[in-house]
């Protein structure tokens, strides 16, 4: 099965990562969870690393 020509997997992966990161930060701001430096630093680094990895593996974007 060939992938759709207008599908960009890197955007999808980056979107899911950003949604997860945003949700985590939102929960902290809503005082549902308590993020401290020991958790926040690896989470942010993992998010940036995951996005870069996804973009690198997917190659250059066709658009956007």
């Amino acid at each position, binding site marked *: 099965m060939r992938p759709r020509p*207008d599908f960009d*997997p890197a955007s999808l992966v980056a*979107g899911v990562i*950003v949604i997860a990161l*945003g949700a985590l*930060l939102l929960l902290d701001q*809503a005082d549902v969870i308590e993020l401290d430096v020991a958790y926040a630093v690896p989470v942010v680094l993992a998010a940036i690393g995951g996005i870069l990895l996804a*973009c690198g593996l997917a190659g250059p974007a066709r*658009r956007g």
Partner: protein
Amino acid sequence: MSDEQPTQQQPPDEPPRPRLTRSTSDSVIAGVAGGLGRHLNVDPLAIRIAFVIAVFAGGLGILAYLACLLFIPSDDPNAQQRWGVARIIGAALLVIAALFVLTPDWMEGPWLFLLIIVGLIAYLLIRVAREGGAAGIAARIAIGVVLVALAVGGFVAAAVGSSLGGGIIIGGLVIACGIGLAGGAFRGGARWLIAPALVLALPLAAVAATDLDLRGTWGERTFRPATVADIGDGYEMGVGEMRVDLRDLELPPGRTDIPLQMGMGQIQVVAAPDVCVVTDAALSLGAANTGSGEEGGVDFEVHDRTVPDPGVRYVHLDVDLGVGELRVGDRFRDHDWRWSRNHATVDPGTSRAACEAP
């Protein structure tokens, strides 16, 4: 002489104006600007910039864009069914946007004209950059500088905004960027959203990790309580320098709690030399010195193990400092706050002998 009748020159047939539809081939978000540009024979870039400017005119840009999204059909014949749910969501968003418009506090007056000028400059720069050549390269460099400045400004704004209690809104914007990214993946990709997502998320993460709260008074404040009633629930500041002068405080027998809270800055406490002071402090980032040496770092607490003898009148400082420095002492290194308007520095350390019963 010719028999031919002079013929009136007929204008060439102008192509009919394209129907107003959202463009699928020239689309950044939903092809509204591309479709309007095609219909009006105007550069879509100018329309996009106008939409962005109008966003700051009480949110009008959002409302106008959503209205266009709702009422202008797509040029994709298969899009009608796909946008069925989107139209319902669009209607809901229109109501929310209308509420924003009814609250005209976003940006008005001279700022709007400044924004229009910035928009015109951005339009010209992008046009020149598209044409290439030496001028195009210079324009690209200028655009890069502007984008970096915008990123730095956005970073600072997100940091200040989230530390002033806007963290939930900024967190929501991060999630919105993520939804845009994931949704854009099926329409050719929207990787440009990664940058704004990170510009918002990184400062918010820093604020969340350090529990930075800048709400409250900003500036320099000196508190000089004379009685316990003056202390009330303690002292709280957002940003700046908090000086707490306890030298005139009449202490009741036993323990007197003084909570001190600050988002970012310096807290200095000075007590009389014959007063026992016990300090417990929590800092997200910075340094604290209560006399037993300076402690510093990230996410650390200072606990004074001193247990005053029964009957001793003593002050218990309960300090919550986000980012900054705490100094507690009973003397000054240079000037005295009482006599000098200079930035006096408390020499850390209080008398341990004062914690013992006479």
